[in-house]
């Protein structure tokens, strides 16, 4: 039978842990609400502008802009968006598993280099043989839209200078509060946008010849300004989706932890009470038997 004092100590320590998880939950709730607002406000643009770009890209001649040129995928750059901090359930684990499987497959036919965002990705890919171009270690919370733009510029430069033939991005999409969705998508060359794994084989979306659009002004300047703008926009999109998903995942994980701690405290309290009662009963019995023994004398 466990000693009362040990049980009390355990209950106290579980209660402390519960307070910590509760506090962490409150913090991520606030962060989550902020991130969710950004995502919900900006989603119409993120989800609808690929439609415009896909159409422009479909009609534009392939040679018009270097970002449109399709090349055989010999050199691939992969970007992985994770978080810096853990305690967010399977948020990072799922993504890293899928991303690593995807890039390992790519590595069979091409030369894969990675750009890693978040401590978790850096730690994970340290153990693999992929060369890393850039890594953002412990800076995710300071990441801004401007950093996304810079990163997009860097990628476009690589692409235009023939230093890479395709850029893939793996990130967590904020699907619902309960579970994020892992998405792997192609950023460059600019073509039909969508889930790589889903659209592969399905072919690109096409438009009937009768809808061939006029360009205003000419196709060249329009494509020239539209594409970089679009790529930057996509990077920002990936980052904020990932960030909202991270906070949602952490909120859920901490909520579960708080609930589990509560259950543990209930169980321990029950054991504590039983033990206490047992010791009281035992003491009473001892007194009674002592009294009876005295009475017999």
């Amino acid at each position, binding site marked *: 039978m466990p000693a009362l004092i040990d049980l009390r100590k355990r209950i106290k320590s579980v209660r402390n842990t519960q307070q910590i998880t509760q506090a962490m939950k409150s913090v991520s709730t606030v962060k989550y609400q902020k991130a969710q607002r950004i995502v919900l406000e900006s989603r119409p643009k993120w989800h609808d502008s690929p439609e415009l770009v896909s159409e422009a890209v479909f009609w534009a001649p392939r040679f018009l802009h270097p970002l449109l040129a399709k090349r055989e995928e010999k050199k691939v750059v992969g970007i992985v968006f994770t978080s810096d901090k853990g305690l967010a359930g399977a948020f990072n684990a799922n993504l890293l598993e899928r991303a690593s499987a995807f890039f390992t497959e790519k590595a069979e036919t091409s030369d894969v280099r990675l750009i890693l965002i978040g401590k978790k990705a850096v730690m994970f890919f340290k153990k693999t043989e992929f060369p890393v171009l850039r890594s953002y270690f412990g800076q995710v919370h300071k990441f801004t839209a401007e950093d996304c733009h810079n990163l997009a510029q860097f990628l476009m430069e690589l692409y235009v200078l023939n230093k890479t033939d395709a850029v893939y991005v793996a990130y967590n999409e904020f699907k619902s509060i309960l579970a994020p969705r892992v998405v792997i998508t192609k950023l460059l060359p600019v073509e039909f946008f969508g889930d790589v794994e889903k659209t592969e084989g399905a072919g690109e979306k096409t438009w009937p010849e009768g809808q061939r659009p006029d*360009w205003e002004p000419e196709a060249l300047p329009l494509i020239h300004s539209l594409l970089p703008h679009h790529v930057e926009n996509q990077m920002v999109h990936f980052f904020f989706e990932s960030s909202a998903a991270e906070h949602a995942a952490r909120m859920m994980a901490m909520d579960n932890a708080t609930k589990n701690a509560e259950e543990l405290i209930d169980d321990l309290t029950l054991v504590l009470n039983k033990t206490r009662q047992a010791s009281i009963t035992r003491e009473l019995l001892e007194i009674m038997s002592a009294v009876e023994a005295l009475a017999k004398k």
Partner: protein
Amino acid sequence: MSETLPLSLKLRVITSREVLVDEQVKEVSIPSLEGCLGILPGHRSLLVALGKGVIEYRNSQSKKHVTVKGGYARVHPESVLVFTDPDEDELR
């Protein structure tokens, strides 16, 4: 074209922060880089870069406008999709 022309346009004006306009309109005018483009239902497909100016649109009851700066628009015979940003200088 032998098809009948649509009677109205579905206008969507989307900024990075919100959906500014989402309604059926009879007529819309958008500021391209080289001047205003008036668009009626059945307009042929068009991809436009926008300049600074005013998007004016009219449905059967009312006429409204939003001031924008830059962006892109896609015109289809039955829809107009605009990505832009509101011109903050003009906001009162």
